[in-house]
């Protein structure tokens, strides 16, 4: 803590933290020309505790939390309810956290001008949601299960079904963009983005679990996806506190 010596001024704490992916992960081909190559510089602790913006519930429309209700008809696909709790590293709930969500439709197609692969768009599905956590840090949204998405990273490459999450916590260091995967997906073991997280337990935490309690009879399958956000301290690693 405190002033940094030159030796740790050039350390990359996150890379040594196997629960986070490295910048360069060669089998994820597009990391090769985009990952920084020069040493990262230690950020003075006093300069890294910027507070995150606060987003009020008035910034959301009711349909932001139900991606099946944004058009005149129902989207095709398996209806799902995703819910979970957002906590910090101390286990305290992160209240009022904005979560931005985006995903492909049931056919694996994104409603985006650069996704031209041969799968149909669904006129009743945009795949964009926003929710804010409640006083216990909990969130919930309704959607449909996304399909697998083909890409050109390697021969016959398919992304496992996933939902993108963007979260704001207490401060700038808590900012997180991640992806939620589905249990039992056979594509996970081939996916370099998922596998870029070296620690297998940390990797497994990106896979939602089936949630019987959240499942609604004759309506939707429930999944639970809990998220842990970093606090606003610049020293995330316990190895910094021997």
């Amino acid at each position, binding site marked *: 803590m405190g002033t940094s010596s030159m030796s740790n001024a050039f350390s990359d704490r996150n890379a040594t933290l196997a629960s986070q992916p490295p910048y360069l992960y060669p089998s994820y081909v597009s990391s090769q020309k985009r990952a920084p190559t020069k040493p990262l510089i230690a950020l003075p602790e006093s300069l890294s505790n910027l*507070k995150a913006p606060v987003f009020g519930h008035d910034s959301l429309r009711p349909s932001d939390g139900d991606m099946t209700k944004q058009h005149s008809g129902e989207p095709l696909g398996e209806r799902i309810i995703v819910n979970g709790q957002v906590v*910090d590293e101390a286990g305290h709930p992160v209240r009022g956290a904005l979560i931005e969500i985006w995903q492909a439709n049931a056919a694996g197609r994104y409603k985006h001008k650069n996704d031209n692969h041969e799968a149909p768009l669904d006129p009743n599905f945009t795949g964009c949601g926003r929710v804010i956590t409640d006083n216990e840090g909990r969130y919930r949204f309704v959607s449909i299960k996304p399909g697998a998405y083909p890409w050109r990273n390697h021969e016959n490459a398919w992304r496992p079904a996933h939902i993108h999450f963007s979260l704001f916590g207490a401060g700038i260091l808590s900012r997180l963009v991640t992806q939620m995967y589905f249990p039992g997906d056979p594509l996970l073991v081939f996916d370099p983005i998922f596998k870029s997280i070296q620690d297998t337990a940390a990797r497994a935490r990106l896979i939602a679990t089936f949630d019987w309690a959240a499942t609604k009879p004759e309506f939707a399958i429930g999944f639970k996806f809990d998220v842990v956000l970093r606090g606003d301290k610049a020293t995330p690693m316990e190895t910094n506190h021997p």
Partner: protein
Amino acid sequence: MKLIATGSQTVGPFFSIGLAGLCQPRGMQTAAGSITIQGTLFDGDQKPIPDGVFEFWSTGQFVRTATNPDGSFSAVLRRPSDAHSFEVLIFMRGLLRPVFSRVYFGEASTLNNDECLLQVPEERRATLIAQPEKAADHFLWDVRMQGENETVFFDF
């Protein structure tokens, strides 16, 4: 007991579906007391990156802007009262976690004693300093992910 933070994953190429809602509208005019920081985001082949998203942070201020098909970006920002820099998070396809940079827009003389800049090797400091343009309150800041003039990124 300390929990382990959830792993980061890339925003991928289609982030605009979810993130555009908070992006600053294009064509914002610079008002009194605001500045514009614009530039281009380049990859290791010095090709523009069309699918990047920038977040400029300062006390009480958050501005998000995505790059255009030609890799250019532009952000209109309120000039902070307590700083001559912004913290910048940059996300893109190909980055499994964001990079953290910092952009300075002050006079060179005001930067001499900057605690953060002093940690940066002298020959790399220029990559963090936006250059004033002819138009008042406009600054140019190109971001290079790799190469000889790779932008400085911070560990966080």
